[in-house]
């Protein structure tokens, strides 16, 4: 009989999920143990946040140690930069996790994490120029090309979205404008497809922000916001089309159709939705949830147009009824009015009188 090479689990370790003794599988944060994969999977949703926080603590400790060693040491500074970027990414992940939990109690903590991530990304960018030594500069250059701007823009977009969820609309607008300004400056320096994608993402996030504000009556029915959203989304769409990113283009088209609906351009909205439907079918297949969403929007568009037509007709009807009341008081038209009244009674509109 073959002997197991796996060491016997120590009895004092208790599973974090089921409290069974002899847990021998540990999480990547090294802080908790489980008796097996099933228990770890069952507990992951609860442990996720704690686990990422522990990794932040660990990385923070290493960074402070490297800061002591740094100064004139180029290699140590590159290591420090790498770790700071890593830490920024972890902060971003935690913030995003809290944002996606849709729990208002966690939003403030999420803002702190996003701000921390932004601070670290900007610090890494700034320290890139001050590095001494050719090897260190080359290593840092590669590193900066790889990750920094992406992380920065994603963080700014999500921070804006978070402010939107917290109904802090001034901060939301400020963050989006800041992101837009930064990405435009970067594109002027060096235009890459990646930066173009970020520009498009920021533009569509801003467009979405304007629509949400209009939809939730914050702008008091100011259609100027919808016009702004229309312009931003059109620009985002042209970028995505130029880069042949059709799935993203379909998503933007769906939002654009809502804007056309708000601007009472129903035929344009229907055409936009047809394009979106066509692209979505090509990207996600004939029977996907996204195709269903497009059809749902089409139904909504028809409903909105019906409402607009009925509103117009009822306005005419109201005017006609008001005028007929005026006529009723003029003696010369009494005969005519009586005829009209009879006709209205016959049609069952006497309740309106």
């Amino acid at each position, binding site marked *: 009989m073959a002997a197991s090479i796996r060491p016997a689990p120590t009895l004092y370790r208790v599973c974090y999920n089921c409290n069974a003794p002899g847990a021998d599988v540990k999480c990547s944060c090294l802080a908790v143990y489980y008796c097996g994969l099933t228990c770890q999977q069952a507990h992951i949703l609860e442990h996720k946040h704690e686990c990422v926080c522990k990794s932040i603590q660990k990385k923070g400790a290493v960074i402070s140690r490297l800061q002591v060693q740094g100064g004139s040491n180029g290699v140590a500074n590159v290591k420090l930069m790498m770790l700071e970027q890593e830490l920024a990414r972890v902060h971003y992940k935690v913030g995003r996790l809290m944002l996606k939990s849709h729990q208002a109690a966690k939003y403030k903590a999420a803002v702190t994490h996003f701000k921390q991530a932004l601070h670290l990304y900007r610090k890494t960018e700034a320290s890139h120029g001050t590095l001494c030594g050719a090897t260190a500069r080359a290593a840092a250059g590669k590193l900066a090309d790889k990750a920094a701007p992406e992380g920065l823009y994603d963080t700014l977009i999500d921070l804006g979205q978070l402010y939107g969820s917290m109904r802090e609309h001034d901060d939301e607008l400020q963050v989006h404008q800041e992101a837009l300004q930064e990405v435009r400056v970067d594109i002027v320096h060096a235009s890459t497809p990646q930066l173009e994608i970020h520009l498009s993402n920021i533009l569509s996030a801003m467009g979405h922000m304007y629509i949400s504000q209009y939809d939730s009556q914050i702008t008091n029915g100011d259609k100027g916001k919808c016009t702004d959203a229309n312009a931003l989304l059109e620009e985002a769409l042209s970028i995505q089309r130029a880069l042949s990113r059709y799935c993203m283009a379909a998503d933007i088209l769906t939002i654009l159709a809502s804007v056309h609906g708000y601007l009472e351009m129903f035929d344009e909205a229907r055409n936009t939705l047809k394009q979106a439907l066509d692209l979505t079918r090509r990207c996600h297949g004939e029977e996907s*949830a996204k195709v*269903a969403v497009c*059809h749902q929007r*089409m*139904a909504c568009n028809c409903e909105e147009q*019906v409402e607009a*037509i009925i509103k117009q007709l009822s306005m005419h009807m109201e005017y006609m009824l008001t005028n007929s009341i005026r006529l009723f008081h003029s003696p010369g038209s009494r005969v005519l009015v009586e005829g009209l009244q009879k006709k209205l009674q016959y049609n*069952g509109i006497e309740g309106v009188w």
Partner: protein
Amino acid sequence: MRVRLDTLDNKELRLKPENVCPLFPTALKLQEQLQKLHDLAQKRITSSKEVHRIQIKVKSVKHVNTAIACETLGVAYLATHQAADTGLAVSLLIQADKIRRRVGDDDKDWARVLSQTLRAAQAAQARFDKGGVLLLASYFAT
């Protein structure tokens, strides 16, 4: 609103907004609009049917999204104000309510709106069943 009478003496006549008559549509235009309303109602039904079909295929019958799709299609049928469509609307709305209860959804607002729509649809169906002239006054009373 201002109407300039002649440019020589620069006289202007001011009209009160309540005295400005909106442009009335002609009978032909009205007919066009009614046809448009009919087409839109049909398009709405077609799109809602497609949503309903995809939802059942993707999420199966026991899903909250299927209940929403049933409700959307039911409301689209109800908006046609036709006897046969109203019957379909009632059955779809009942189905939506059943699915909602089965999946244990706790959205009270949605439950309220759904039951109100169902009651309106049942009332409309009862009026169709009764026969005779559909009075607008009785429609508003419900």
